[in-house]
């Protein structure tokens, strides 16, 4: 029976290991030999850039790190480009995390910037670390920041930190940016902090989260959005700093091949169905 099948039909029975090999090579080769494809910026990314670019020096930006090692390759490039943008403009950064992994991600990221921008802990930036409780933490700091964060990650009292002068509730920060890979994340920050207290906010999220967040972007509750690695690459193009752009070649080829697989799989399916009907 199998031998009666045409070439196009047999294409649908291709061993999955061939698919794995092709996808593996499609990612691996462009990483070794970059194609240098031009990254085209989308309006939602430009909105994020403009929002950050309009912040005056000294602005205190709260960045919440809601991602872990599994989503690090997708979200961290956004964080790198964002911190370059902020520190270049002499903005100050207060980091929090609603994911336990988030504080490791943020700590590692700040280490990359400390020397380059001559940053001082507690003055130019501070890492407050992780607090359990998801949106309850956001609701808590919305009323009493220091009741939820008494100390920073190094054990210093928050009230002794110059960067925290005058910050008693979340509305006292000038801007919120979330680096988010799921729940709790961007949506919770919009619902419980940015929107009720009119705090300007923007976000970088994993591609799969965009559907969930884009209605808030469309409604103006979030200034733009960095959507997945492509968003990171676009932002890097605008900031002119970062590494995500080189990964876009690999992602381009992989996406193209997956689309090709879908088309070939469907051609095989249609040919097979026609033959069955005519038989």
């Amino acid at each position, binding site marked *: 029976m199998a031998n009666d099948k045409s070439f196009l039909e047999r294409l649908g029975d291709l061993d999955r290991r061939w*698919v794995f090999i092709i996808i593996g090579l499609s990612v691996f080769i462009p990483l070794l030999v970059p194609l240098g494809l031009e990254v085209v910026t989308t309006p939602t990314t430009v909105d994020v850039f403009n929002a950050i670019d309009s912040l005056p020096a000294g602005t205190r930006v709260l960045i919440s790190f809601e991602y872990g090692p*599994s989503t690090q390759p997708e979200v961290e490039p956004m964080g790198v480009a964002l911190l370059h943008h902020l520190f270049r403009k002499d903005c100050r950064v207060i980091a929090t995390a609603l994911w336990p992994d988030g504080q*490791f991600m943020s700590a590692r990221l700040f280490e990359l910037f400390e020397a380059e921008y001559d940053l001082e802990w507690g003055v130019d930036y501070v890492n407050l670390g992780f607090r359990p409780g998801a949106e309850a933490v956001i609701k*808590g700091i919305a009323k009493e920041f220091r009741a*939820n964060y008494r100390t920073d990650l190094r054990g210093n009292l928050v009230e002794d930190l110059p960067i925290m002068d005058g910050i008693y509730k979340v509305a006292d920060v000038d801007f919120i940016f979330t680096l988010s890979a799921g729940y709790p994340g961007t949506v919770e920050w919009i619902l419980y902090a940015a929107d009720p207290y009119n705090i300007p906010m923007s976000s970088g999220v994993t591609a799969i989260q965009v559907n969930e967040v884009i209605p808030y972007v469309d409604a103006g509750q979030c200034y733009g959005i960095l959507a997945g690695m492509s968003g990171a690459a676009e932002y890097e193009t605008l900031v002119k700093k970062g590494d995500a752009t080189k990964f876009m070649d690999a992602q381009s080829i*992989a996406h*193209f091949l997956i689309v090709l697989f879908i088309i070939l799989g*469907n051609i095989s399916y249609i040919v097979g169905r026609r033959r069955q009907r005519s038989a």
Partner: protein
Amino acid sequence: MFWKTQIPVAIVFVVGMLTLVQWFIPHRPFDQLQVHMTQWFDIIAVFAVILGGLNLLKLQFSKIINRKKDWQYAIVTLVGFAVMFSYGFFRIGVPGEIVMGDHLQAENSHFRWMFFNIFTPLSATMFALLAFFVASASYRAFRIRNTEATLLLVAGMILMLGRVPLGALLTKNLPSFMQLQNIQEWIYLWPNVAGARAIMIGIGLGMVATSLRFILGIEKSFLGGDE
């Protein structure tokens, strides 16, 4: 019955009503309720970690004792749990005098080394495997069986190509409205937002209804058992 049902239901009613009321009365003492209650929640959430840990131990030990399928992996899980727990909780392998909490992040601490050199690559590997399964599934399962499936598939393909530089390159000589990056942006901002909003409103209404059922004691599934 009184202790197992009526008291918990009464607690849920009182706490639920107070939480609800504080949204509508932004004055003392109601405005302070949120501060206190969110702190209570934070404290209770910490205890959930203990419950989670105990549950993990119970499940994995039972898997090993009963020699269930792939029980050997349970040993790896337990060893991983014990090692990370010990190094984190008992400050093993922490250089110098570093305060509790900060020792997890200290540059030469063993916990940090394990997090970044074992946990991080393992997590990233697991996530990266998705690319292979998605590719394989796209080849075998994404079929244009009807109009809805065809629409979904076409939209998906446009998004996949429109989000990457190659999509822009392939269509850069076409009129603007036919360029993939512009079509994908339109799909994101119009049909997608419409659908997402409809789902969000539905979820919101469902949450209101479910919350009311809990507060009013109609829904008692949180009590466990057959209540």
